[in-house]
């Protein structure tokens, strides 16, 4: 008796939940990200904005199917919660696709679920190389750390820089970046004078920069997480007059748009390598930024926004390939090897690794006509794959 009752309740609920015209499928996508907390500004809000911009530009229908995005909040690295959220989304909300995820531990926690339930997940950020291999249904539209680090090492060698000190925050991505830079730099004949790993909780970077200054290398390569650490580090770099001492600053995501204005004039001249600059000069980017500003005039186009935007594109293509039905293997197969022109430049989803292959740009921080700080691209490294695999861990 109880089971009949329960089935009736479930059927009634399902009936209430179905929206749209009769016969239309609703394809739900669960987006997991930090929509609250300290990472909301750099990732959570951009994720949402990127997705909503794509929907504004392309509508929410793919064929007969209506795509619906559900957002779930996870404020920081919390593998247990990530897995719980993913499980709820798949079992309770019946999403066909998962998306988002900023932190590697969270992605790792969701991997077994994605694999056993055959639910594809499009990763909007988690950049450690190994992540995308943890499930056959993971696709990444952001970047990997080695992918953006190898070009900056090459650039340094091209500029005739012979010695460097790596200084990274002591956590997974930092260590990945340190290894990628060191290997590439040394392979090209450079010398790594010292490798410093700073505790994540460091607030006073002065001593570290003094140490570097005393060692007198030609450059330093830095990697820190977004927000207060990057801000503090760049300030300390300027305060301790390292540039005047001839120690060049090499970085990747430190000057990304959501933090750039707060860094102030001290950031002018810093050179970094990354896969997206808000000031990228292309018609696709212009259309993207315009649509974004229409959605929210205060929105800033940063790498996370464009990763989400492209991620939404991948999801739409997957829905199209499966005609709105839940078929993980078919969906992922459809996007393997897919290429398109993203606001960041030409991109391809690698057929073997399901990772993104894209241009990486060397940029310099400058002031634009309005006096705002932008990352001005001046050199392109084309079609960079994930170097994490070729360099070895």
């Amino acid at each position, binding site marked *: 008796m109880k089971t009949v009752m329960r089935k009736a309740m479930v059927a009634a609920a399902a009936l209430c939940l179905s929206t749209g015209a009769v016969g239309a499928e609703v394809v739900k996508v669960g987006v997991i990200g930090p929509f609250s907390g300290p990472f909301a500004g750099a990732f959570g809000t951009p994720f949402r904005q990127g997705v909503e911009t794509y929907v504004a530009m392309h509508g929410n229908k793919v064929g007969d199917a209506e795509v619906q995005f559900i957002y779930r909040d996870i404020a920081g690295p919390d593998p247990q919660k990530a897995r719980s959220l993913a499980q709820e989304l798949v079992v309770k909300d019946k999403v066909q696709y998962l998306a988002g995820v900023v932190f590697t531990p969270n992605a790792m926690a969701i991997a077994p679920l994605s694999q056993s339930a055959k639910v594809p997940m499009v990763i909007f950020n988690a950049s450690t190389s190994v992540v995308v291999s943890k499930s056959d249904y993971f696709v990444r539209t952001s970047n990997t750390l080695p992918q953006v680090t190898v070009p900056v090492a090459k650039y340094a060698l091209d500029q005739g820089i012979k010695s460097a000190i790596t200084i990274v925050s002591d956590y997974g991505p930092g260590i990945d970046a340190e290894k990628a830079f060191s290997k590439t730099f040394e392979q090209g004949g450079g010398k790594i004078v010292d490798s410093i790993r700073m505790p994540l909780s460091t607030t006073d970077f002065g001593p570290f920069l003094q140490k570097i200054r005393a060692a007198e290398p030609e450059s330093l390569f830095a990697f820190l997480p977004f927000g*207060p650490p990057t801000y503090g580090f760049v300030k300390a770099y300027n305060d301790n007059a390292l540039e005047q001492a001839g120690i060049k600053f090499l970085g990747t995501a430190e000057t990304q748009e959501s933090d750039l204005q707060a860094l102030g004039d001290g950031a002018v001249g810093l050179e970094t390598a990354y896969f997206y600059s808000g000031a990228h000069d292309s018609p696709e980017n212009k259309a993207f930024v315009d649509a974004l500003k229409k959605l929210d005039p205060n929105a800033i186009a940063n790498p996370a926004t464009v990763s989400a935007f492209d991620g939404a594109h991948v999801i739409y293509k997957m829905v199209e390939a499966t005609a709105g039905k839940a078929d993980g293997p078919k969906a992922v197969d459809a996007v393997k090897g897919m290429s398109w022109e993203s606001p960041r430049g030409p991109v391809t989803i690698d057929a073997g690794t399901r990772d993104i292959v894209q241009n990486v740009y060397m940029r310099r921080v400058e002031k634009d006509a309005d006096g705002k700080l932008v990352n001005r691209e001046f050199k392109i490294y084309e079609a960079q794959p994930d170097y994490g695999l070729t360099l070895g861990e």
Partner: protein
Amino acid sequence: MELIFSILIDGLAYGMVLFIISVGLSITMGLMRVVNLAHGVFAMLGGFFMVAIVSRLGLRPELAALLAAIGVGMLALPMEKLLFRKVYGRSELQQVLLTIGLVFIGIAAVGTVFGNSLLAVPLPEYLRRSVDIGFRVVPLHRLAVVAAGLVVLCGLWLLLAKTRFGINIRAAVDKAKAAEALGIDTSRVYQLGFMLGAALAALGGILGAELLPLEPYYPLKYLVLVLAIVAVGGMGSVFGSFIAALVLGTVETAAKYLMPEIASIMFYLTMLVVLSWRPHGLFGRQL
């Protein structure tokens, strides 16, 4: 040799910032015996008030800092009357919970009004340079912080040793009941002491903004740091906070220079060792 000097200089600057922020807590905890985890909220509010004053009223940063500190002190008065007073003498757990609740409310209020990002505190022009002292460069604002810390230390010493108010505070810290019996209005002393503590915290928040960036989660992030200084220094002892801040600041700085990977472990380990050896802190008193 240069390394040792570098460690001392940076450790001193870092320690001074910690001292200014924490000394207010040491006074209030010693005075009212209330475990006040919400102290960081005052520091954070100091920074936010100052930025608001500079941007809305266009005043000079130094003046804005002073006004912000006074403003926070005034804000502390009703908080003392309405909230903290209720938990004097109650169990430490209750105080922890009340003040954690206040921390959450503070974070929520600031976060809702200012949003989630970092707040940059404007520096006066003349402090934006760096001074070359031969083997290294020292940012001028660090020296300014060290100077400010010494001024605060001397000022507090004068206050406590030479003024009537100071004598009343010391009496209330030592033996509240006896002080009352002698006619000292202890609740007034508590009020003023609390305001002083909050104003000092605000000042510390402003001066330390380069090292401890201001953002809504500030009180929670640096809570442990501040409590550590007070615990190691001994509640109620200004000099204790000073020494503790310098010791802990220098230890962490030295670790950053010499063994960066375990710098934060060194901080906590030092705290543990000191507290095991002297459970009431370096200069604390037996209750």
